[in-house]
């Protein structure tokens, strides 16, 4: 059963960015698009979000054609997307406020979601009082509070340090597992992609194309209680990671230029 359907999407600005992308996101999938910069993965996510329109092809969610942004798709941005004039709970409740839901009801809902992302107790904090990881969790909470059909994430860990990154990854897997919502995530970090994805999509640039799709279960294993280190040191994980890496690197780019002999 597919929910999000991307059909023959192409786009070109100065040069061709996406070349005839077709893709289906099934119920409960955690789809990760991975590829080097310039492969059009962020453009594709923006088309799904409705911020931009592809030059040809169509995207639909539950059979409904996407023509612009809407609250059925929750977006988590790379960074700094919280509104500084609102405190944390007001930020999280913003989507509900825009829908005209009463203050007491939206705050109760926002509180629940903040607890889900481990930010209970930070309701009244100012945006600038939170660390980078906490801000990203609050962004995730804001997207979740509006109860979207699908979550879209554009490099949500891009601005985080390695330690925070692992925590937020774990949290996103937990949220994915608990809510059962589909997730579409874009990243250029291969290990992260292999770890999170239930469906991994490899893209190459100039023009952006899908070269391979892999079904993986490392994220599910983590959600079922295995530790991140245990999974990431599993020979199977390493094999997949190296396989994906081999798509992008021949392993000789550097050796050709340096002489160690």
């Amino acid at each position, binding site marked *: 059963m597919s929910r999000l359907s991307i059909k023959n999407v192409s786009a070109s600005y100065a040069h061709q960015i996406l070349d005839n992308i077709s893709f289906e996101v099934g119920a409960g999938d955690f789809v990760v698009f991975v590829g080097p910069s310039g492969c059009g993965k962020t453009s594709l996510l923006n088309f799904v*979000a*409705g*911020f931009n329109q592809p030059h040809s092809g169509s995207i639909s969610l539950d059979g409904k054609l996407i023509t*612009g*942004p*809407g*609250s059925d*798709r*929750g*977006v988590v*941005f790379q960074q*700094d*997307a919280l*509104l*500084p*004039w609102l405190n944390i709970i007001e930020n999280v409740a*913003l*989507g509900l*406020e*825009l*829908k005209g839901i009463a203050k007491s009801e939206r705050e109760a809902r926002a509180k629940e979601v903040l607890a889900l992302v481990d930010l209970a107790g930070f309701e009244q904090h*100012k*945006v*600038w009082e939170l660390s980078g990881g906490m801000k990203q969790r609050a962004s995730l909470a*804001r*997207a979740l509070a*509006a109860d979207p059909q699908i979550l879209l994430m554009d490099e949500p860990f891009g601005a985080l340090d390695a330690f925070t990154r692992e925590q937020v990854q774990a949290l996103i897997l937990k949220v994915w597992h608990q809510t059962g919502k589909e997730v579409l995530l874009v990243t250029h970090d291969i290990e992260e992609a292999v770890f999170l994805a239930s469906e991994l999509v490899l893209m190459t640039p100039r023009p952006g194309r899908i070269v391979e799709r892999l079904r993986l279960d490392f994220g599910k294993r983590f959600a079922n209680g295995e530790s991140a280190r245990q999974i990431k040191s599993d020979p199977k994980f390493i094999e997949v990671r190296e396989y994906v890496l081999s798509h992008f690197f021949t392993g000789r780019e550097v050796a050709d230029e340096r002489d160690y002999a």
Partner: protein
Amino acid sequence: MSETTLSSTANAVINKPELSVAKVNARKNTGFRSGFFISALTVTSLITIWALVTYFSFVDPLYLPSPLVVVQKFFDLVINGYADATLWQHFSASISRIFIAVIVASIIAIPVGLAIGINPVARAIFDPLIEFYRPVPPLAYLPLIVIWFGIGEFSKILLIYLAVFAPIVVATAAGARHVDPIRIRVAQSLGATRWQIIRHIVLPSALPDMLIGIRIGLGAGWSTLVAAELVAATEGIGFMIQSASQFLVTDIVIAGILVIALVAYIIEIGLRILQQKLAPWRGKVN
């Protein structure tokens, strides 16, 4: 013995970062205090030089009366007044003109500025009008205002209003135009309508710039005050200064200038505090 040495070394090492933090804090505090101290020193030395120059009669009191004379004149103005009005009456006439002008200008300039910032048609309509009159000195169009609107209170307030209006419009428009596009996308992806985006994203994003516009506008208003009170005024600090200057009553001129400077400075500080209250995120996040 050696253990003691070790532990004291360890203590020293552990204490080090704390020490440096304290040092940084101390430096920060001194920075603020020395800033205030330097400002106070500047003002005091200026007054001292002024006092010395007049005390040793380097300058004719007609051109520069001594600080003491100015202070005496100030109290004389408070009690006896000048030109049939006490200092308080002159002051309240001026400040109410400025306040009315600033309030009306803000009410009109903020929506106009927002419209210019977000709507190309509004920009095309208003931009040439504002840019056309903005650089013209108020004294240049003062005669026109008198011919059109007479010599009443309206003309005086209109002149100040025009000076205040432009900076608020320009600052608000700039604030509205430079809203972080990510914030607009945030609202769009939460299902915001066009009006909701203006209300929830553009307006608060532009708020710090609006407040800066009001601060600059208020300054422009004060500098237009004297010109405005050229028009058949019987009360007002600007009127008082002009009238006194025609009779070479220099001490009243200086007292009037000091009153304007002091009041403008106090209001400016008040606006800075207001800005900190209304837009505390400024400088903390982009």
